[in-house]
């Protein structure tokens, strides 16, 4: 029990750190010094100290959006394993609840965006739901492939079974799932090549434009929610790729956290060397993820 609470606290504490890492890597590639590693924490605390500014158009949905999204994401944290140790909650089929909690967060982010009546935010919301239409089946199918590979049905069991040994046998199905999950990870977290978190033009944004009108505490919630979501989806990847099973709990934790930092570095590198896709090409990318997971499933059917 204590271990599980520790896990949750670790997730809540560390997740904003990863954005600092990404920013540092990008700064490194651009030849800049970069912002402090703890900048996300500073931002969140600064925002929490601020008052509020609301548009005359908005209603309570606008305020409720970030609150509900954050609670959904925090709730989803309770279902993801940490360093291969069982999650706070786990049950047969928690995959469905997990994905739908992410869906709930998205649903209210989108409604809050539409609540402003701004065309920009409507545009961002439209893109967000469009990509989710393809990303959700891909996520379901890649997790279904893992269910078939491991023969278990909860996130905790799956990621306790896909140990590093499975990876070293070079099971092609797992490699394909990793590929699919990485694409979904980038899409759901609005990173390059799907969305550029640093873009400056409202017309080209996706996630950033949806939260354009939020400020103060609401925005702090959103920022923190984004960080938690990054961790959640990153866990799906890193629990397969990068963790040990040494028996010493804190060593495992440390290795896993290091793995998440490696993931952040990878994202930073991708963002530094790749350009954004044109918007109408994003569905292609997601269909590639879908194709990879279907392929992985086909492999599990035959072997």
């Amino acid at each position, binding site marked *: 029990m204590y271990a599980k609470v520790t896990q949750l606290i670790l997730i809540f504490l560390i997740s904003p750190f990863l954005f600092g890492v990404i920013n540092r890597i990008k700064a490194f590639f651009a030849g800049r010094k970069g912002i402090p590693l703890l900048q996300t924490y500073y931002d969140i605390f600064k925002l929490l100290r601020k008052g509020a500014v609301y548009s005359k158009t908005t209603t309570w949905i606008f305020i409720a959006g970030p609150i509900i999204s954050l609670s959904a994401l925090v709730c989803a944290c309770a279902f993801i394993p940490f360093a291969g140790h069982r999650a706070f909650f786990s049950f047969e089929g928690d995959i469905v609840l997990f994905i739908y909690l992410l869906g709930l967060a998205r649903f209210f982010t989108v409604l809050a965006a539409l609540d402003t009546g701004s065309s920009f935010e409507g545009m961002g919301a439209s893109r967000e739901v469009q990509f989710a239409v393809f990303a959700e089946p891909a996520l379901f199918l890649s997790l279904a492939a893992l269910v078939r590979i491991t023969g278990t049905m909860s996130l905790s069991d799956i990621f306790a079974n896909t140990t590093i040994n499975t990876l070293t046998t*070079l099971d092609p199905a797992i*490699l394909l799932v990793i590929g699919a999950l990485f694409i979904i990870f980038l899409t759901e977290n609005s990173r390059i090549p799907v969305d550029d978190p640093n873009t400056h033009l409202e017309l080209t944004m996706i996630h950033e434009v949806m939260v354009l009108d939020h400020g103060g505490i609401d925005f702090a919630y959103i920022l923190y929610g984004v960080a938690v979501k990054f961790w959640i989806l990153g866990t799906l990847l890193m629990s397969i790729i990068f963790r040990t099973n040494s028996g010493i709990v804190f060593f495992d934790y440390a290795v896993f956290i290091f793995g998440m930092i490696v993931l952040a570095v990878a994202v930073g590198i991708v963002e530094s060397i790749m350009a954004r896709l044109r918007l109408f090409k994003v569905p292609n990318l997601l269909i*590639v993820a879908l*194709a990879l997971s*279907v392929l992985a499933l086909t492999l599990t059917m*035959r*072997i």
Partner: protein
Amino acid sequence: MNSWVDLNIIAIVLMNFMMLSSSRIRICIRVVAIQGILIGLMPLLAGVHSTTYASLVSLSISIALKGIVFPYLLLRALQKADIRKEVEPIGGYPLSLLMGVILFLVSCWLSSRLIYAKPLFSNLVVPVSFATFFTGALIIVSRTKAITQVLGYLMMENGIYLFGSALLGGQSLLVELAILLDIFVAVFVMGIAIFHISREFDHIDTQNLTELKDWVPSKQE
């Protein structure tokens, strides 16, 4: 189960999907080239060839042709013809990708219905060879540029080669060489044709070739 063989096969399938989803002709040419090399290496990885002199010669010829000569010729044709370097699929990329997935599933189903005389080195190799063959056909059907059609033929050849190397083992040398020769001539002729078409018409879009037909429906009657 030899995992390197499986990885290689997966890479071949991924090449199929890349071919269907990438928009640059240059990338497509390279994808087909790499796929050709991977397929050429397959017998070595699987260890089905007794490393006889003849089979090694066959391997190196096919790899050299498909991995170096053809891409070189095609890239040169591309450069000479000075065409737009984008593929234009009929029906859009998502549809071709979905078709690719469906064709792969169909191939799996088809291969599960075949009865093999001897055990294969991987139970994935036949479905993948079918899928590669079908993807080549899909490329020919759904892309409009002459050069992508050549690429489609090359992919079909890749599929046939893979199938041959899986089923026939070392005895496929003659068949292989004959097909390779065909393809070689095809690429050569296409290269020249593309060059001339583009000089005459300023494009190599095969859709516009329909204008060359004799009979034109008149609107008056």
